[in-house]
């Protein structure tokens, strides 16, 4: 709980109407898309870097935690106030400041919804590729904090590949600019890359300079249906082997298809074992040529059918189906652990076969879907918390999946981040020296540990005994 004097100070900084300590508002800022709940002690709706700077200085002086938050749609608990504290909402900072068609860049505030930004640039014949599944409601700021990926990553990369520069409020309150507005730039350390994907633990992004591309002339969408999900995965490897990089190469297994079709009614074959949603983009002649080759490869990989979506509505429905997969899976079981492991693309078949084996061994329903084209598969371990056997088996299965992915030279998270959900698994992938360096970096940025406490690193590791403790002693908790 905040003292009256802290509350008044916060009200003074952001204005009476933009600071709330009411139970109603606290409840509404207590969760994110992981559905984990922890009550904050206050919420502020900031509108300028100066206000945020003032908030951070107050937080350092008084020793309370500040949790930056965009749309609250993250998948690893990054914006959940696990230790209470002040939620700093960036929802009001939603201006597109400029779109520079000559230099192929745009400058935006963090609260801009990704899809709405894309609509604006596409209306000018430009293209901002990163497309996390939540793009219609998540924000650029959140995308940057988590280094969001998406289906187009197979061809266009992820958020970090489009962030040229940032304006950032440091945990200690200074406002800095990183990066450039130019194609090249090597002055000093690459702080931009360090901030992108830092999960709101190193600074608060208040402005981002984003790289744009010319909008591809056309996009062709295809749907290939397979009897077995492993056939679909095999087709993915074959397509890449044929030197074609589709702009989208999405996979869904049988369970995902069934749940999604129940909701989206996009005409997916509910009894299929697996499917691929494939898009190629570029000049008309190229996409037509590539589509023919891809169709052949899918058929050689035992596809039952390969169809091109002819109408805009059809494409829209297919994407609605794909984008609803994660939430629609709750139709199968009441709870799930959603992991986003990545393996080298050539190992996708082995990953899927391995997950099937784990599901069988643990007697659990595990649904796989995701960005097969870049090797990033969302592995959803479905269970029912009220069933003791399943409640025990599910986290064990998750560890097995991580071990499997790492064994295939992969990583335990492609785009969701660590947050609170995966903190305890950090050591499975990173060596102690690397983790120690990361914690020391965190301490340099945030000596009093006030920005987004409780994320990425286990609190035990951040304790004084680890040697990576804050330089000026442990942060004072309110």
């Amino acid at each position, binding site marked *: 709980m905040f003292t009256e004097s802290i509350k008044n100070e916060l009200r003074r900084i952001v204005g009476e109407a933009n600071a709330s300590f*009411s*139970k*109603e*508002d606290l*409840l*509404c*800022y*207590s*969760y*994110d*898309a*992981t*559905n984990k709940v922890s009550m904050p002690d206050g919420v502020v*709706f900031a509108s300028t870097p100066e206000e945020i700077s003032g908030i951070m200085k107050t937080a350092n002086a008084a020793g309370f935690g500040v949790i930056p938050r965009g*749309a*609250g*749609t993250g998948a690893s608990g990054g914006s959940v106030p696990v230790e209470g504290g002040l939620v700093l*909402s960036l*929802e*009001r900072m*939603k201006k597109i400041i400029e779109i520079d068609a000559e230099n192929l860049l745009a400058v935006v505030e963090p609260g801009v*919804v990704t*899809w*709405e930004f894309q609509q604006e640039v596409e209306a000018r014949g430009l293209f901002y590729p990163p497309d996390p599944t*939540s793009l*219609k*409601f*998540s924000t650029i700021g959140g995308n940057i904090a988590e280094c969001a990926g998406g289906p187009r990553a197979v061809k266009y990369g992820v958020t970090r590949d489009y962030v040229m520069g940032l304006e950032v409020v440091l945990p200690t309150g200074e406002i800095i600019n990183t990066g450039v507005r130019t194609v090249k730039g090597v002055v000093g350390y690459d702080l931009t890359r360090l901030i992108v994907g830092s999960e709101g633990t190193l600074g608060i992004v208040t402005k981002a300079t984003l790289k744009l591309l010319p909008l591809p002339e056309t996009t062709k969408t295809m749907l290939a249906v397979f009897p077995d999900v492993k056939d679909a995965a095999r087709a993915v490897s074959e397509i890449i082997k044929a030197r074609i990089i589709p702009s989208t190469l999405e996979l869904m297994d049988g369970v995902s298809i069934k749940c999604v079709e129940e*909701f*989206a009614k996009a005409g997916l074959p509910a009894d299929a074992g697996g499917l691929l949603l494939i898009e190629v983009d570029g000049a008309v002649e190229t996409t037509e040529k590539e589509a023919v080759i891809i169709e052949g490869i899918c058929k050689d990989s035992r596809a039952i059918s390969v169809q091109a979506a002819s109408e805009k509505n059809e494409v829209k429905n297919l994407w609605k189906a794909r*984008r*609803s*997969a*994660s*939430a*629609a899976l*709750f*139709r199968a079981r009441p709870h799930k652990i959603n992991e986003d492991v990545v393996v080298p693309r050539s190992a996708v078949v082995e990953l899927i076969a391995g997950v099937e084996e784990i599901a069988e061994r643990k007697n659990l329903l595990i649904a796989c879907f995701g960005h097969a084209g870049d090797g990033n598969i969302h592995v959803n371990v479905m269970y029912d918390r009220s069933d003791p056997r399943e409640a025990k088996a599910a986290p064990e299965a998750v560890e097995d999946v991580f071990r499997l992915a790492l064994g295939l030279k992969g990583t335990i998270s492609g785009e969701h981040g660590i947050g609170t959900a995966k903190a305890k698994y950090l050591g499975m992938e990173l060596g102690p020296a690397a983790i120690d360096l990361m914690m020391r970096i965190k301490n340099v940025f945030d000596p009093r540990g006030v920005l987004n406490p409780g994320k990425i690193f286990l609190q035990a590791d951040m304790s004084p005994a680890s040697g990576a403790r804050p330089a000026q002693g442990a942060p004072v908790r309110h």
Partner: protein
Amino acid sequence: MEELKHLKDEINKCVKCGTCRSICPTFRVIGRESASARGKITLIGARFNSELDITDAYLKHIKECTMCGACRDTCPNGVDTIGIINAARAQAVKEQGLPLAANLFLKNILDSSKLMPFALKCAARFQGVFFKDSGVDNGLLSRFSLPLVGQGRLIPPLAETFFLDMPEVKALASDTARTEKNRAARPLKAAFYAGCGVNYLMPNVGVKSIEAVRKAGGDVVVPDSQVCCGMPAYYMGDVETARNLALKNIEAFEGYDCDYIVTACATCTYGLKSVFKELLSGESIRSREMTARVNAFCSKVMDITVLLADVLKYRSEGGNKDAKRIVTYHDPCHLNRNLGVRDEPRELLKGNSSLVFKQMRFPCSCCGLGGGVSLTNYELSIEITKRKAESVRDSGAEVVATACPGCIVQIRDGLHRYGVDAEVKHVVELL
């Protein structure tokens, strides 16, 4: 108890993914989590678990919803968001009572087939005192701030003669039953339900509807004891008033031997077709006889655009082909989201050769009127309309067609406020 259990299950189905945020017209204006369905469901869940009292803030948040249904339609988990919010409103009314002004209006005026016309007739006579003519077609600016009327708001003028009082309409109140023998030989018969919008504000929409049905070969009757559909009361949580009105309407139409019950109002169509069933089922009224009566009534209900386009295959004669006007269409939530009617009104417009149809961006986004928001929070309501006004302006349309008097009132107000020069008409006025 069963209902409460169902509600809790429904609340638990929300996994807080956030898909309901950007699609929500109120959230787009307010920009805070409490305005999104996810936030409201969190608050309602806390309320039902007794973690939260009925506070002013709680009431404010659950009222910040136009009930457009965009969140429900987009929810991957199929959460009945509207059902949850409506139940929360009904519960709040039960525990707290309606605010005084709304209570008087809904209970005593809406609920009486005599008082409502009387009250509005008085208002029609005195409207010159309260409103000055804004010079904009079909709208008056409020001169004085009335309880439900903000300054600068474009208020539709009350009709000089209400639709149900027109002699030609009154003449259609008597019906002759068809016998088995002559049923096949006689034309299709539609019983027209006017609703408050058509009756008090836009009698011409009723007149044009009747004309169109007749032109396409149908016969029309207009039962004279029909009353308000009760949807305003329903959406403000006053289920009791809504139920009484539903019963009165079913009784009003039961004496007529008709094939269809037709309305020219999206909200009335949805109310009559779907909400009546909900209102007149449930534990208190579960009787077989009642169910049969409600089903018989509801199964006949049809929107005028569907009757004309699909059943009567209406053919437009077109007007002046040399002076084509650009028309766009706004989808009323109650037709589009709740009843799936999207193509029929567009087909009718496209069939008129003196019009050029042009789709606007976001045709399905809510106009901002519904769910009681225009009554309880006009500033929010008209802010929502801004997006609609911008879509209309960007489309270049000279006429906005829609199929709901409520949407017409709201969009006219919005276009006026945001300086967009376009007429707003019901589809039946453009055939």
